[in-house]
């Protein structure tokens, strides 16, 4: 853990050093404030008000499905010596989920809607 912490600090330190260095090397350190590029149109609304994600249903399916990873990793390291029972149990579980995914697909959960 200590070395992980050290690396975290060191890598952010490098980033910070680059930022400080850029203040010296740049033609001017004061940021140039611009409007976002919109082919010359002036922005009239905030950026987020013009777009809507179309994959809400897919994200719900994703959140439900990814719970399975909680069980998958501890299972992965013991399946070798637990034997066929563990394989059957986990893949039965996954098959059930994949059937739910197939059902969700028929409902159009993975299409833009």
């Amino acid at each position, binding site marked *: *853990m*200590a070395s992980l912490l050290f690396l975290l600090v060191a890598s952010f330190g490098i980033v910070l050093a680059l930022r400080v260095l850029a203040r010296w090397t740049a033609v001017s350190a004061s940021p140039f404030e611009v409007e976002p590029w919109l082919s010359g149109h002036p922005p009239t609304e*905030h950026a*987020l*008000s013009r777009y*809507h*994600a*179309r994959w*809400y*249903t897919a*994200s*719900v*399916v*994703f*959140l*439900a*499905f*990814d*719970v*399975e*990873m*909680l*069980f998958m*990793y*501890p*299972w*992965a*390291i*013991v*399946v070798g010596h*637990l034997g066929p*029972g*563990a394989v059957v*149990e*986990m893949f*039965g*579980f996954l098959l*059930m*989920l994949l*059937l*739910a*995914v197939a*059902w*969700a697909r*028929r*409902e*159009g*959960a*993975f*299409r*833009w*809607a």
Partner: protein
Amino acid sequence: MNLSLVDVGFWLCAVVSVVAGALVFYVDSMARATYALAVSFVAVGVALLLMGQAYMGVIVILMMVMEMAVMAVYMVMFMGMNPALMPMSMVHSHRSSIAAGVGTFLLLGAGAVLVPWPTRRGAPTGDVTSALGEAIMESHMIVMIAMGPVMVATIVAGVVLSSHRTRYDRLGDDLDRRPADDPQPGGVGR
């Protein structure tokens, strides 16, 4: 009082998690609120790491960062106004909520301090993760078995609630329209 590195780390995590948690309801920006909650979760994950639960710590960080990334989208899309540009207060019954919060803290905190906790029995096994793997496959198999239907039910209920077009809208009344009629083409079978 001798303070070990673990103690320092824990107090750091404690402060970060509570402050970030409070910021969720203080900051004006929806993205900042969501990512403050993510920081709070990461701090709790690190605290779990310090308490000898490596797998739980990492998996909390993994799951929560992922979920907060999705959460941010919902925050931005469904808040219905634009607090990134204008500060907002979307709070009701502010005083009673604060009272409830303080009351909760006093009650739980008093319990934490006053309950005569038993001493630790047993010691952690050498490899907590593989012990966990064996537990969910053998002694606590019922958890896995129960979780399967729960997740299937979540997928089904979630899809039913969140999609506004059903299979009949897509595939026709006899479910035989191919390719399906979707607002935007894509995916498999197109």
